């Protein structure tokens, strides 16, 4: 945009934007659960951007609280949400420590990884998210270059949650969507039951 007064250009197109730092991390969408069976971010729907606009996308999970004790999971779509079944290979390990101090461990969890699996990827490795009123799941998931049509799609997740133990659980999940098609949506859900409450925020990283 330019601002011109009496033939004098006061501001050129872009003059304002160029002088204002716009930051490198942009909130795209917030979804709030309320007894929700799924929470989905699909490019082009409800103002969601999940394409080549950003090279990295960051999901933030804030106090995901299940209706029943269950695992928190996600999957990708390459057809705008018609199917969530992208082939994935992943690693899953986690750390846990009981409040009672009678058990603590760092261990790989073979039951929760995927080897060319198309099902949901578990994020709450080693346990179910607890259901007591103060229990929840918090963390992040990074998705790299989902619109790329040359490479597989890498993802990395770190989180902390409380299971019904009660136990502090700190899982680490990493892997890739083994597809050269663009990923244009991500869906989150509990393994069983609904997400009673909580928020998921999607950011774009410039």
């Amino acid at each position, binding site marked *: 945009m330019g601002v011109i007064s009496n033939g004098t250009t006061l501001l050129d197109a872009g003059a304002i934007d160029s002088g204002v730092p716009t930051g490198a991390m942009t909130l795209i969408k917030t979804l709030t659960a309320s007894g929700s069976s799924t929470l989905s971010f699909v490019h082009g729907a409800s103002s969601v951007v999940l394409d080549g606009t950003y090279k990295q996308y960051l999901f933030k999970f804030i106090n995901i609280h299940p209706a029943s004790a269950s695992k928190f999971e996600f999957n990708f779509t390459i057809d705008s949400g018609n199917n969530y079944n992208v082939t994935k290979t992943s690693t899953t390990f986690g750390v*846990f*420590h009981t409040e009672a*101090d009678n058990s603590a461990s*760092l261990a790989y969890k073979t039951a929760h990884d995927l080897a060319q699996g198309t099902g949901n990827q578990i994020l709450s490795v080693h346990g179910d998210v607890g259901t007591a009123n103060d229990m929840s799941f918090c963390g992040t998931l990074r998705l790299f270059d989902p619109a790329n049509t040359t490479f597989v799609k890498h993802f990395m997740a770190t989180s902390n949650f409380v299971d019904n133990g*009660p136990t502090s659980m700190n899982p680490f999940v990493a892997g890739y969507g083994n597809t050269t098609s663009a990923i244009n949506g991500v869906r989150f859900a509990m393994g069983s039951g609904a997400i009673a409450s909580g928020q998921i925020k999607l*950011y774009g990283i410039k």
Partner: protein
Amino acid sequence: MAIISNAVTMADAGAFSASLGSMTLIKTLTASNSATLSFVHGSGGVVLDNTYPIYKFEFINIHPSGSGSEFQVGFRDGSTAYDATNTTTIWYAYNFENDAGTAFEYNTSEDNAQVAGFAKITGAAQIGTDNDESGSGEMFLFNPSSTTFVKHFISNVNYVSDDGDTHFVTNHVGGYCNVTAAIDAVQFKLDTNNIASGVIKLYGIKDS
């Protein structure tokens, strides 16, 4: 900003508002032989309430004044004490510069189980004191103002240790303050010695 030409308002204030990004620097504290570095909501320009759902601390070259120091965090949940009860996990990987040893393991002697006190965010070995040795990393604190949920935090600190032969350590801590009261202040310190130098930055990650 408004642009007015010949008394005609061409653009009102706010018309050129631009997205300023979703990560806001709230406060920088710089250590100078400091016993503690504290971020207290409402003090010194610190915001640590429901303004942001997620807060991020960045640790930049934390350098202890003496040997044997481990970096710790404490949370305040209503009183003036940093004694919010917490349960944590702590694991690390390390590798010696002389290639004499590596490890990848849980550290049962450094975690907390319902401890009303500080949580270690380094611990496999102490942060080194040579002039070029320090610790750097980050910690996320989720929804500290919630009065419903426990308060989760996740940290990763990399550091150089001269505990024995010089080695690199990457230390990971996850945990939660097992309180439903709001956390309104966070304090960092070394378990022994002062923080000779280093910077801790507090960012808010915007809600909208």
